[in-house]
């Protein structure tokens, strides 16, 4: 067996570990799950959520890399896409929050009172953009 394989395997493994650390540092620092967990007062189950994040990512990664076919049917696929969408939506929302967009906007424009509507508008805009993109790429 070509010894170069060992080098390749080592590089790939180190890369995977580095990416995982960065990726999960991002997800946990951005604070989606602390917020969701405290909202429903299930703080004590943080470990289960972390496990689900870990195994979900590991599984998704293997499925993607090796193009493993799992017949989920249309219904299962829709469920997966729904929760994936919720997650990405939370991520996008949390990103605007971490970057302090809303505090700054509300101070500049003095619109504190109407801020909730601005957030609805933001969500509607993201949804509209997503729908437009999906339609244009599919049709």
């Amino acid at each position, binding site marked *: 067996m*070509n010894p*170069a*394989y060992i080098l*390749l*395997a*080592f*590089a*790939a*493994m*180190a*890369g*995977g*570990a*580095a*990416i*995982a*650390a960065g*990726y*999960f*540092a991002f*997800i*946990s620092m951005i*604070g989606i*799950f*602390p*917020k969701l*967990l*405290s909202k*429903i007062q299930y*703080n004590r*189950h*943080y*470990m289960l*959520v*972390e*496990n*689900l*994040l*870990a195994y*979900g*990512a*590991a599984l*998704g*990664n*293997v*499925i*993607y*890399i*090796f193009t493993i076919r799992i017949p989920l049917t249309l219904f299962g696929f829709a*469920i*997966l*896409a729904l*929760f*994936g*969408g*919720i*997650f*990405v939506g*939370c*991520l996008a929302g949390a990103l605007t929050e971490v970057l302090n967009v809303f505090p700054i906007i509300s101070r500049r424009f003095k619109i504190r009172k109407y801020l909730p509507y601005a957030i609805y508008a933001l969500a509607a805009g993201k949804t509209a953009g997503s729908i437009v993109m999906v339609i244009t790429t599919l049709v």
Partner: protein
Amino acid sequence: MADLLYIKPKQSVKVNERKVLLKDMAEIYSDNPDIAFAADKIEVYKFKEKGKKQHIISILDVVTTLTSMFADVDIINLGEPDTIIYYEASDSNVNVKEILKFIGLCFIAFFGAAFSIMSYNSDVNLVGQLELMQDLFVGGDEAGISIAGMFYSIGLFLGIIIFFNHGAAKKFTDEPTPLQVQLRKYEQDVNQTIITDMDRRPEK
């Protein structure tokens, strides 16, 4: 000489009884056991049957009560100036709605993580990168891609486990996990916001 009373209020407490005693919200120590015993039993607030479920108690209110009760006592605060008390009636029956919400959250965590790692992989064209690396490091046939893919997956899993500091249920070290740290941080931020909000608002 005046008796010393050390008091260490917490930043926030959760109570199940409507009557909140001083010892619920603070640790108390005094050289004079009579004072410590009496101070423990002081009722600082009583939640109404219906109404709001949180209340802020300033250390000044406590000091006022204590100085009116004991003529000659010096109070030394070692803790927080304001304490938030969250009231939650203790009910033992399991709330189905909460559990459903939690299951939804678990779904978001699991499928969301799977979904977004796939987005990441396709965003950086990971398979293409592995092909390139196979070409650079090994050359020739394509067997390297699946080996590299396998080890990339193992590495990714190891990275996650090391980052979160636990396997299925057992922590590797005593340190808190990242999510635990974030939870506490978020809790402190919420408490701070409630206290600041209360300070800005005129007397209700």
